[in-house]
């Protein structure tokens, strides 16, 4: 843990060196989801509602997923860029050091500019909560926290899993973006607006629906009975990350240096 903080502080100092670019980047990062949010707002301004969901409910949905995506991108960015490490053979150096590979890869990249994105999601979260006619009880707050934390786990799991695949393919695989970026795009809206098979895929295979749509039903008071089940559904994220970590360990064992 101490080592991890050390990594972070070093990276922060190096990134703050290019000052103008750093600020532009932070602003840009905050703008990206802002334009998406503006798009969302314009859509609702045009159509009013989508399958019974109002703008603020969708905004809450969007904020939760945006927050967990931004957090996992800030911390697990190293895995996202991992294929270049394998391709250049630099992973060898990590292997000979007496610390776990996961810690080292986690510490290899850390993008502070993503914090701009996080802040923006956080603002949307509070804004939509204040506009929604719901009473925030303690269990509901707890569920919201759980949703975000487990969302981070799922996205990090996806990053780790795709990074592990590059042990075999050497090159990074762009298709994996379908699950990370694509998953984020999909989960931005309440999953029930999609066709059935899509909803099923994102509930049972990649449980993004479990950290977002199902518990949200509870927070918004739309459930009938079995509240505890909706409340605890984000825990699927914990279940999801385990096989991803396993895949990583198999990958490390399998690793053969490219030698260059």
């Amino acid at each position, binding site marked *: 843990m101490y080592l991890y903080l050390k990594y972070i502080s070093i990276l922060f100092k190096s990134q703050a060196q290019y000052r103008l670019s750093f600020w532009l980047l932070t602003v*840009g990062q905050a703008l990206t989801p802002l334009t998406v949010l503006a*798009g969302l707002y314009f859509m609702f*301004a045009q*159509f009013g509602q989508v399958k019974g969901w109002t703008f603020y409910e969708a905004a809450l949905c969007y904020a939760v997923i945006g927050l967990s995506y931004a957090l996992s991108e800030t911390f697990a960015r190293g895995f996202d860029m991992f294929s270049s490490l394998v391709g250049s053979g630099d992973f060898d150096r990590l292997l000979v050091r007496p610390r776990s590979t996961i810690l080292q890869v986690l510490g290899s990249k850390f993008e502070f500019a993503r914090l701009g994105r996080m802040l923006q999601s956080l603002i949307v979260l509070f804004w939509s909560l204040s506009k929604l006619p719901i009473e925030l009880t303690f269990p509901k707050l707890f569920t919201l926290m759980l949703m975000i934390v487990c969302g981070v786990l799922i996205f990090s799991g996806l990053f780790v899993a795709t990074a592990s695949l590059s042990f075999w393919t050497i090159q990074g695989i762009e*298709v994996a973006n379908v699950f990370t970026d694509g998953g984020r795009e999909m989960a931005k809206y309440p999953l029930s607006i999609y066709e059935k098979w*899509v909803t099923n895929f994102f509930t049972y295979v990649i449980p993004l629906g479990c950290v977002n749509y199902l518990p949200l039903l509870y927070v918004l008071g739309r459930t009938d009975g079995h509240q505890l089940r909706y409340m605890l559904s984000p825990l699927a994220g914990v279940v999801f990350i385990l096989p991803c970590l396993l895949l990583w360990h198999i990958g490390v064992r399998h690793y053969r240096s490219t030698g260059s």
Partner: protein
Amino acid sequence: MNTYLSVWKLRFVSGLQYRTAAIAGMATQLFFGFVFIMVYVAFYAHSSAQPSMSLEQLATYIWLQQIFLAFVMLWFRDNEIFNLITSGNIAYELCRPCGIYSFWYAKLLAQRLASAILRCIPILLVAFLLPKPYNLTMPPTAATFALFVVTLLLGLAVNIAISMFIYISVFWTMSPVGSTLVIAVIGEFLAGMIIPVPLMPSWMQAITYALPFRWTADFPFRVYSGQIPQSEAVWGILIQFVWLAALILLGRWCLKRALRQVVVQGG
């Protein structure tokens, strides 16, 4: 002129080499196109108001965006040029007996063309064959199609002129990520890549009409579906030419200023 043509040809051929990357990219684009349309289908299903664009036109709009993504997106970047500037190797580039602006322009043009040609046909086929609300429709007449091709190519030229500013800005910031992001994010929103321009409220539409971004993507795509009538499209082409000329002149001027203050350190 010949020099630029051969630069263009070399780049084009090397761009065609990355086939696996193209396949992966295609799968991603198909997926995104499909998801975007699915969202709109849900919105349209329960809408009482009549939106300014039919679902059919919308699906066509989205598919064209995905098919010609390499033409319209501002993200597309050439890291080689960035490295030249930040590492100081720009000195070699300055020694060449040809203008830097045209040289880079030819390079960027070839890359985008190669990438689009590799990807467009398979996506085109799949999009045509998809079931009803999701499919890509044919343009209404042959003349519309001809106009579409002209506007699309002009749009591409305008887009590259815009993206040149990203490269030029690196002379000042020395790190490409920031400026790419800001220009790309704002530009893509104004080009109707996030939500189609006709679905924006009228005050937002007025802003997009006043800026060049919209002419790179939104305009050709709506010409294709016949939403913009032919007579209006001809005027649009004229406006595209004006923007192109203005942006290139401005870009050349900025580049000249940037080069005047450039300092290359030995090493």
